[in-house]
């Protein structure tokens, strides 16, 4: 067990999400609802990691004051040297319970079905059935 976990530590990056395995020696299990949910989580962690650098390079790339060589270099770096998952647009807002990618109420981070369920049981602060 320790050998496997040690090896898996060496092979994977520092982000440990409970899915480390080596070539089918170990059944992979995690507590996420979905694999989609887990992947989205990994993307978000990646975004967080590279957010600052990306912001600065994008500012260099998109401005029109600096010489274009510099901006070209910044564009090139963003395109090649940054992982794709560091881009914010790749993250999808999912329901945090059911992992539903559509119909997600952003404020509560749940899908519309779950939202209705909780609101009906008075578990959403301040939410009330609309009536006018």
């Amino acid at each position, binding site marked *: 067990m320790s050998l496997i976990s040690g090896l898996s530590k060496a092979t994977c990056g520092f982000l440990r999400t409970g899915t480390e395995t080596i070539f089918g020696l170990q059944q992979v299990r995690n507590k996420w609802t979905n694999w989609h949910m887990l992947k989205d989580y990994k993307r978000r962690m990646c975004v967080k990691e590279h957010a600052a650098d990306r912001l600065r390079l994008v500012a260099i790339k998109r401005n029109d004051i600096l010489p274009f060589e*510099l*901006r070209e270099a910044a564009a090139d770096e963003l395109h090649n040297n940054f992982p794709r998952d560091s881009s914010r647009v790749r993250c999808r807002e999912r329901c945090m319970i059911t992992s539903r990618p559509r119909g997600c109420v952003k404020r509560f981070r749940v899908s519309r079905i779950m939202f209705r369920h909780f609101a009906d049981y008075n578990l959403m602060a301040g939410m009330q059935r609309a009536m006018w």
Partner: protein
Amino acid sequence: MLQTLKKLRLSTWSYRPTCSVRWYSDDEKPDKKQKPSGKEQPKAKPIDNKEAISRLNALLESMPSTASKSKIEIPLAPNKKKTPSKESKESLKKHIDALRDVSERIAKKIGGNTEKTEAELLSQLLGQSNLKYEGNLVNLIADMKVESEPIKKKEQWKDQEYSLAEGVRRSLGQQNERRFTRRIESTPGVVNLFGAEPMGLFEKASEEKDPLETWSKLQQRELKLAVTHPPRNYFEKMILWTEQGKLWKFPIDNEQGMDEEFATDFSEHVLLEMHLEGWCPTSGPVRQFMELVCVGLSKNHYFTAKEKKDHILWYKKYFEEKKDLLDGNRKIFNIVAYTPDAQFSQHIMPLMNLIPRARQCHQPYAEIFTNLQGKPSDGWFKGFKQRHPKVCLRKPELA
């Protein structure tokens, strides 16, 4: 005969009340009834008889005096504090006198500084008997104060075992507070481990990494859990959360937890040009860009002052790395203001399908105008039109 008498005695004795304030002495006969007070005796006969009178007298004599009352034996706790009685004090004084004489004699025999040796001897001897004395040797007994303290609790602990929590805390290394204070006489003295040179008997131990990393971590965790008690009820949970900062504190303060922000002045947030000093050129595209960055940051409500500073310093580092691009072979003309938007992609941000004229712009060579016939017009600022090229130089040579 005796045995029968004894039996009688025993039988009569059993009817006696167990606790009585006064009772008669053992000499009296067991047949007689026992009454609490002998004064109230029924007088069956008149007091005329001499016999009766004599009997009365005998009885009265036999009655115990009020002074010698027998005490009630109530099981009380013994008085622990031993106050030094007069007798003990006197004996102590005698003891100390004897010690003093002895120490004098010894000091004389040894020779040298007699007073010093005497003082040392006496301190050694008296220290053990838990006495204190102040003042110099001459006024030793006059200044002496006899203190008999009760046994300290700490000494009792030496024999007791430690509780489980105690043992755990010790192993964790948190046992700095409860060390027993040893008496000064029993310690060997100050030991300096690194005073002398090492003898070189042992090889340096190899610093191997602990192979059972997880195990040791779990062990540490277990020890911690054994010592810390989880919350017993929801109230304690909420207290814990409040202390951790997960719950709001009452009265509600919207700026709870933003103590560092309170400490930073607004000038650190708004006046960010000071971070440009030293490295940023005073004019040019880089300066313009950085000033815009500073303006943008000064209006940002979400960055901390430190983050803003780091942001600017990142740019410093970046521009230092890309220095060759800034003043390299390529042309650096700020032609933005004079280039219409339609030609942006051709001149400013070249991608592909460049018109021939734009293609010339991006050549590595600069064209110097030595014979300028025309007046400064739009062509002047575009800079790359081939007017009257006389000399063709590369950019570094220009600089």
